[in-house]
């Protein structure tokens, strides 16, 4: 039996040929949509900027030209300077690092917590499932921003707590999504087959069910990354999150707000950064959803 299985098993890519073909087809479909291509370009731009910030940014995030506050955009300061003489162009670049890192941390943590709780819930069912679902009901009974506000207020206003607050807000979405996936996949024939050859529940969840649910999770995660960037910026705009002077998009807009009429560029450029990073993610997420939805493939 063992030998038979071994002889039938090809190399890794041969074994997964159908999945690879499916993936290539998906990529092909994605390339057909100019909007998705623009989205990928925007995401690539922001990731590049975040990764190479020290080389791209002409000045440090906390560097100040005290004698040159509120300078309009010029060749020296591409996006102008803020109220304390910080170079806005450099600060927007450094902030990309911070904001993308927050968004990634939040969504990854939410996926991990959600996968564990959601798949256990979907697999065990019964009391555990009912209790977990009622708990997610409570979390989802608040709009995201407002729950995050309250949690951040309870923990204390700083960046770490802001991130924790956002994780607290976002995990129920994934717990429910993955529970739904598990419930749907659990009934399928291949799970029966896996169980028949003696696979335990943990193996079935992690080796069979989760890999088959990966696409809906990716779509949700792409769209949520944009949502987290917006929510984090909104929270830091009203005074949660980073302390004064830190290069963070929402906070930079809050600083520019008091001088909106004299120096509109202070608030404008960080806002554009939020808009375009979030737009890139939404374009790709939206395109992915269309491509992966068989009803819309026609």
């Amino acid at each position, binding site marked *: 039996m063992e030998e038979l299985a071994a002889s039938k098993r090809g190399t890794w890519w041969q074994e997964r040929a159908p999945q690879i073909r499916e993936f290539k087809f998906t990529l092909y479909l994605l390339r057909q949509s100019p909007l998705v291509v623009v989205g990928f370009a925007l995401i690539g731009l922001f990731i590049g900027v975040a990764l190479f910030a020290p080389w791209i940014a002409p000045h440090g995030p906390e560097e100040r030209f005290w004698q040159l506050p509120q300078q309009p955009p010029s060749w020296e300061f591409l996006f102008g300077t803020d109220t304390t003489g910080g170079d806005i162009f450099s600060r927007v670049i450094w902030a990309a690092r911070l904001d993308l890192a927050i968004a990634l941390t939040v969504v990854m943590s939410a996926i991990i917590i959600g996968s564990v709780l959601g798949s256990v819930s979907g697999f065990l069912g019964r009391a555990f499932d009912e209790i977990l679902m*009622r708990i997610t009901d409570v979390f989802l009974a608040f709009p995201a921003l407002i729950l995050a506000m309250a949690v951040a207020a309870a923990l204390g206003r700083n960046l770490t707590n802001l991130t924790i607050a956002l994780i607290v807000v976002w995990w129920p979405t994934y717990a429910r999504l993955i529970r739904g996936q598990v419930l749907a996949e659990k009934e399928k024939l291949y799970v029966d087959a896996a169980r028949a050859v003696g696979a335990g529940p943990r193996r079935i969840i992690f080796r069979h069910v989760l890999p088959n649910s990966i696409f809906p999770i990716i779509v949700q995660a792409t769209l949520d990354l944009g949502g987290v960037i917006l929510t984090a910026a909104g929270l830091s*705009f009203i005074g949660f999150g980073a302390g004064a002077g830190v290069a963070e998009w929402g906070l930079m807009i809050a600083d520019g707000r008091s001088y909106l009429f004299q120096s509109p560029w202070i608030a404008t450029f960080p806002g554009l950064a*939020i808009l375009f990073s979030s737009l890139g993610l939404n374009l790709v997420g939206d395109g992915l959803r269309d491509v992966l939805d068989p009803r819309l493939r026609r």
Partner: protein
Amino acid sequence: MRWWADVRLRHYVIRRLLLIIPVLIGVSMMTFTLSHVIGDPVAAYITSQEVRLSEEQLRKIVVAHHLNEPLYVQYFYYISDLLRGDWGISRTDSDRPVTESIQHYFPATAELSMVSMIFALALGIPIGIISAVRKDKPADHVTRVFSLVGVSMPVFWLALLLQYAFYYQLKIHNLPSLPSGGRVDQFVWLDHPLKVITGLYTVDSLITGNFAVFFDVLAHLILPGFALSYVFMAVFVRMMRSSMLEVMRQDYITLARSKGLSERVVIYRHALRNAMIPTVTVAGLAFGGLLAGAVLTETVFSWPGIGRWSTSAIVRDDIASIMGFMLIIAVVYMLANLIVDLLYAWIDPRIRLG
């Protein structure tokens, strides 16, 4: 009440109503926990004048609200206080009871949210229809970009841009400009005092025939209303587009076409009505998000609603106001969801089978 005779629908309604109870209990547990995490819960019952309390006075308050007892007993008294309408004292709002503050600030937020909802529906639905009817044509691409930009737009930043363009730029060019914040101009208010009945100034001014205030209030609503509505307009455009496309594939649309009906009649008489159902339900769900967006919009436009009240409460660690705000938002959000679910079950019989 013929629908009540339908056993499945009746069961669904009862189950849906009963599900509110555990959520309400959970929500109250959450605010209760938060009040213990933020600081000493006794702070909820102390006014800002009483900051220098003697030990004796403090003990009186602690005993009066049972804060010296075990946690589960405290929770019990917390619930009974809530039910009696004692939600603590809002230090942010000059030591008024929290329930009074909510009554005072909520209508402003409700008015802003409703105006935004009207903007969003009035613009979003037609744009969504155009996008679906002209699928994959330039008009479709433009509306898709327009709606995706809306979803990606930081609402507070859009609010600032609108202020800059329609208040500041118009003003410095001596053109008629829109107000940059507040609900009503003080001078208009002084000349034409408004008798507040519902707290919704547009309604109150119309009832009392106070047109000077009515038009001023409308002018104040335009910018914050539009800023808040853009995100939701985008949601409606997407929803309307996809449900319209879904409906257009149905057999009865092909039948209507094959009967020789004009495309206009097919779209507006047959497709639109069915495509509206999911959009209307999304409108209900969006109401909660609208309340959240209102927090940011109110901050930028100095709009005297519960959103601005709550942000100033958080800055001052005003526990009672924060909890009151959380509770009221959760209740409103939950009621909106409930109404949507019930409407949906009533409209679409397939839901009841689930």
